[in-house]
């Protein structure tokens, strides 16, 4: 049974970018930074203004994705799953800067929690009032897809009946440095997806995530897997594959695309959003890899029952 997408929210659909450049190791990196958001426009919760950008963006996206959809009571049982990769490096730098400037006796105890890897999912649960499962997944570039996979499995186990998956990245000099300057062009964003397995209302969603694959495996094995999926695409349907590979292996997909802007773990989720917003494909494969030998994909299917009734 697939996960139905009850609601989705992409921060960059509502907030503008600012173009900036970062000079690192004699290299100039272009970055599209999201404008800073005034979090008090979204919540009256205290102590949020000085949170790191990735955390604030995740909170705002979570509120926007769940408000008017879930009751306060439903939010208590909501599972929170965050995918993120290198933002923690910047949060560590912000915390440690007073230690380098003068003394570790002057580091801020208020900023220390930001350095703990689960602080983003923790803050979301505090602001939304979720008392259920709460985790942050960090598997590099694959973090977004892996967070979806963990959510899917907890939904299947019936530990929760709704999941909020949030994928967020903050781009800063320290982040690009730890990404080994792997791209000349980075972009920030944050995504939120409200998901369920419940099938009460067949009209209430456009797409469902049918399958999620994530493995430490050789690239050849992974591409063989993709080729099989590609071959199985029905001819009469419109199919899209987002991939990272250059090999000519995709034959049946109507649309195969790659992206040259690095959004870290948001990269693949961004492509996923493009596809579901376009709303013109019946089958979508979104794949990703994290350079540690971990490969993943999402297999997404249009809600055929809804289409039939339209």
């Amino acid at each position, binding site marked *: 049974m697939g996960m139905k997408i009850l609601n989705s929210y992409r921060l960059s659909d509502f907030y503008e970018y600012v173009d900036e450049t970062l000079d690192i190791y004699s290299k100039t990196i272009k970055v599209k930074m999201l404008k800073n958001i005034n979090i008090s426009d979204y919540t009256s919760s205290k102590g949020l203004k000085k949170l790191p950008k990735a955390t604030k963006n995740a909170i705002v996206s979570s509120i926007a994705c769940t408000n008017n959809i879930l009751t306060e009571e439903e939010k208590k049982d909501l599972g929170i799953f965050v995918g993120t990769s290198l933002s923690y490096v910047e949060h560590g730098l912000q915390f440690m800067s007073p230690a380098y400037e003068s003394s570790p006796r002057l580091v801020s105890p208020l900023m220390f929690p930001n350095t703990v890897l*689960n602080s983003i999912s923790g803050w979301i649960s505090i602001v939304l009032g979720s008392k259920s499962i709460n985790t942050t997944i960090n598997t590099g570039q694959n973090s977004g897809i892996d967070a979806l996979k963990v959510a899917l499995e907890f939904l299947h186990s019936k530990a929760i009946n709704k999941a909020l998956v949030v994928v967020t990245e903050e781009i800063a000099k320290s982040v690009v440095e730890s990404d080994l300057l792997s791209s000349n062009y980075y972009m920030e964003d944050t995504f939120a997806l409200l998901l369920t397995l419940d099938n009460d209302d067949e009209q209430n969603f456009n797409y469902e995530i049918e399958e999620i694959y994530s493995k430490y495996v050789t690239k050849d094995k992974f591409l063989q897997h993709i080729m099989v999926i590609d071959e199985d695409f029905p001819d009469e349907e419109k199919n899209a594959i987002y991939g990272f590979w250059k090999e000519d292996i995709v034959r049946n997909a109507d649309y195969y695309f790659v992206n040259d802007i690095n959004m870290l773990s948001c990269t693949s989720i961004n492509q996923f959003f493009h596809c579901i917003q376009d709303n013109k494909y019946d089958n979508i494969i979104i794949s990703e890899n994290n350079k540690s030998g971990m490969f993943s994909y999402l297999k997404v299917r249009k809600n055929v029952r809804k289409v039939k009734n339209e």
Partner: protein
Amino acid sequence: MKRNKVVVTGLGVVSSIGENVFEFWRNCLDGKVGTNKIEKEGIEILNATQGGQIKNFKSTYPGLGRSCQLLIAGLDEAIADSNLNLSEIDRILIGTTMGETTIDYTLKNTFFGIENPSTFLRQNQLNNLVGDALKALKIEDVETCLFCNACSGGNYALISGFESIRNGLADVIIVCGVDSFSTIAYYGFSRLNAIASEYCRPFDENRDGMLVAEGVGCLVLESEKHAKAKNQKIYAEIIGYGMSSDAFHINVPHPEGSGIELAIKKALDYANLLPEQIDYISAHGTGTIANDKIESKILENIFGNEVPISSIKSMIGHSMGAASSIEAIVCCLSIVHGKVPPTANNLKKDPECNINCVPNIYQDKEIVYAMNNSYAFAGSNASVIFKKYLGESYGDENTK
């Protein structure tokens, strides 16, 4: 729906009181204290001087990050202990608090504009903590995940592994918790005035804090069917869990302990047990005044004050993401050997901690059901219940 029974068939541990399960357990029963004076390149020692570093640990993989090195050692022992072929492993799931602590070195260079070695920078990519360990151990074709759930990270990985086997998604999963000694954590907890002046004394009237530590714990989980087919030795079964969030404060526990109470009650409900059936509780027991007071209150309310309780953090300090995995190992060994490990450094009972804290030396006791509790930053709580493996076949009575 038929659910698989989940059993523990292999263990691996590296801690400041033992770099393998045998040594760890022997010292654990004796109440040996492994915490000592902190020594680390680039660290400035503040008022608190003690920590739980594993000073004799030497990895045969010198180019990797320390968390990765610890993870390799723990995995290696657990795999050997369970006599697994590498191709049998379906998943390796890992919990952590800080991940790889290489940023303790790179951030200073970043701050001063000094170029960092790329070998260090790639260790900041936490996927390499997992990927490098798998590559070193020649493990391929497995699903992996890094659960960042701070001090309950190990339990989160274990629960995910438990559900995956129970629901038939996998037969063999290794679940781990790992963290290396973090300078950031040391400075952070110091500024929160949460670090003990000398010893970690959970539930003692004179306790004054926790001690930042490091370590790894790994448990091999198998479906009973898979384990029996191989005639595996079985340490224990896993029969239930509860997870909750305080939804209260990022680093202060809920004053009424409502989140930890919820996690415990969910676990009992899942396992279909009454509180009085629990024979041993491995407490979170950090040694901070606030945690131990709230945890004791909840444990007393639910279990009364007879069930033996201990915190091994008194011996090894708080090994962060490794803590709940190592404590899960303690639950398994307690069940197998019929011994309750002690809480070391426990000299004076705190009247505000009205629980049966086992002080300083182990106690003999037959343990059928053991509970492992872990609580974390951001109010992330997880309780797991282990059962003595009796070999009998059961089905629906232990399903939710």
